[in-house]
């Protein structure tokens, strides 16, 4: 019923390819093991981990619009293949004019302990699931790389963090203020797409569940209280989608306007958490079990919301940008 913006045939095919990989992740995952090596393999074979690699002219191989499709679909399954970290690390290297700083290894990004921004020291590597071995970060304007110790746990169960083991090594690339702003804008849109996928999918399954679960002799979906919960959450998902589409388009159109990216992440950070909370409510007690996947979605969006600035921090930042008190830098 809902009309959606036309995706090109190419984009529709892309979405289908990724949805297949995500579906396999969902249907084969056991509750106890978070092994996403086969998902990673499928992503690599389809070239999806290299979407933001540079072509001969240094331009990215794929648009932000395409990246958003891939990230959203994988997030629907809360897949733990380190796709987002890899995309960010690749974007960072491309913007810094370096390439595969550690050949043949998978890389993610180094963030400060508060996850607010790229870092070099006192840092942790986020989205560091198998097979990530290194992470790129920033020391002033200089790109650095560090080897990682094995992944430690994270409350986002499928997405471990890791602690750097070796010293930070300079890799020759630098990132000036504009490039850093461009990186953050890209990262905000990718995170917003992750929030959209993880929250949208669990809402859809809650709505389906509400049509089947019977109490008081009727499906709980007939109760207006349940309907309104779902309807409100649907509005929040649609608004997230509008913000993500618009932000992706803004970056792809090359007008250099980073505000829509900040808006998409700031909105998604609060909306996605609320959507998943509402879905949990619709499922009832089963959502509070370890076995049921709802809490995986909740954990994913809670952590995503913090990466590179949560909703409150980004809102304040946006005010400064709009008031002309800041040039878009964090």
């Amino acid at each position, binding site marked *: *019923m*809902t*009309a*959606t*913006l*036309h*995706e*090109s045939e190419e*984009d529709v095919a892309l979405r289908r390819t990724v949805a297949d990989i995500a579906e396999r992740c969902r249907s084969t995952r056991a509750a106890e093991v978070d092994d996403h090596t086969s998902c990673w393999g499928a992503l690599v074979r389809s070239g999806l981990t290299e979407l933001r690699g540079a072509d001969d002219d240094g331009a990215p191989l794929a648009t932000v*619009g395409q990246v958003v499709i891939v990230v959203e679909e994988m997030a629907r399954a809360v897949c733990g293949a380190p796709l987002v970290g890899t995309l960010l690390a690749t974007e960072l290297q491309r913007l810094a004019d370096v390439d595969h700083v550690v050949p043949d290894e998978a890389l993610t990004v180094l963030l400060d302990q508060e996850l607010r921004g790229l870092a070099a020291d006192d840092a942790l590597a986020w989205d560091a699931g198998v097979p990530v071995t290194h992470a790129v970060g920033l020391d002033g304007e200089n790109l650095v790389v560090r080897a990682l110790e094995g992944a430690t746990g994270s409350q986002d169960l499928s997405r471990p963090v890791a602690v750097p083991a070796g010293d930070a090594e300079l890799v020759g690339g630098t990132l000036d203020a504009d490039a850093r702003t461009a990186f953050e804008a890209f990262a905000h849109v990718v995170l917003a797409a992750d929030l959209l996928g993880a929250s949208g999918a669990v809402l859809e399954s809650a*709505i389906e569940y*509400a*049509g089947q679960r019977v109490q008081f002799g*009727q*499906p709980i*979906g*007939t109760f*207006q209280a*349940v*309907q*309104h919960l*779902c*309807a*409100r959450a*649907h*509005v929040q998902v*649609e*608004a997230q*989608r*509008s*913000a993500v*589409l*618009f932000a992706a*388009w*803004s970056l792809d*159109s090359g007008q250099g306007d980073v*505000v*829509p990216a900040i*808006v998409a992440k*700031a*909105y998604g950070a609060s909306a996605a958490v609320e959507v998943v909370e509402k879905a949990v409510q619709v499922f009832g007690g089963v959502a509070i079990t370890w076995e049921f996947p709802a809490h995986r979605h909740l954990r994913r969006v809670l952590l995503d919301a913090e990466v590179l600035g949560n*909703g*409150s921090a*980004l*809102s*304040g*930042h*946006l*005010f*400064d940008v*709009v*008031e002309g008190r800041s040039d878009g830098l964090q």
Partner: protein
Amino acid sequence: MDFSDSSEIAEFRSGLRTWLVDHTITPEAEESEAMFLKRWHQVLFRGGWVGLSWPTEYGGKGLSNAYDVVLNEEIGASGAPDAPRIGYMGRAFLQWGTEEQRERFLPGLLSGDDYWCQGFSEPNAGSDLANLSTRAVKDGDRYRITGQKVWTSYAEYADYCILLARTGEPGGRHKGVSAFVVPMKSAGIDVRPIVAATGESEFCEMFFEDVEVAEENRIGAEGDGWAIAMMTVAYERGAADVGYLSKFGAALGELRTLVSSDGHVPPLARQRLGELEVRFRVLTEHVRRRLTEREQNDSLPGPEMSVDKILMTDVDQTLHRAALELLGPSVLTTGPGSRWLEKYIYSRAASIYGGSEQVQLNIIAQRLLGMPR
């Protein structure tokens, strides 16, 4: 996927921006809000800024509806009075009207010379609009209309009313409802303004006693009234279709200026204003997406507009509630004419008119999400 400001749109935008600087207007003494907005509508029309997405035959500009968003954005940014709310009124003529009706009614609607009101709600037909009981009885080449309407915005100033009345059996619900254009100076109409909680008179009661309306003033066939009403309210739920984007943009800009007037913005205010900015921009982006979809699919608005209405209402209510807190108690301790309080109270109506918030949520759950009844 494309939201682009093409070079034509960019040019339009900068032309409009300049024009707005040169054409500010202020209310005259004793001028009602409604008449002030009517005058502004006419000024805008003469400048060539009204009816952008309407066909040229009837006084429109025949442009894509992306231009309506630009109009809203620029009016909002300039702080000028609201964009005209005509986007939803009169759309019915394009779909259901005769050529003669379009030529007769649309130019005056677009130019702002004719003021229109919408006579749908009745004392016993609020959310349950299908319970309406105003009767239209066929009498030769005319209808005789009898009944009562309520909450009709700006009826006291209106030249025409789009009226819903029952031509079929009493109690026939959605069936047997027809839509008419009723000239407000017809004999037998009694309009009684109601003072709203804001202190302004915004809406009216209307009593119809054997009011004669020519058959050629019926829109569509007998029984088309329900579909016409549903399409009209679907447009009414779009923030660009009713000019509300401009209203929110202007309010937010003014609030920002007021709060930061002494150059110092307390951290809490900074965050609050930032959050409002996020919400407002998401709404704008959502509207742009919606209008792009409408254009791409060549479709008319439907139940998906309930999503837009909820988003629009949220922005309206969050913004005006926050304004009271940010501006402090002086808003409440001043005498009559406390504008921000009036705006706040009016924002509480946003989840009531045009289909209440609960009705929108019912539509989303049942018609968009397919939840069981």
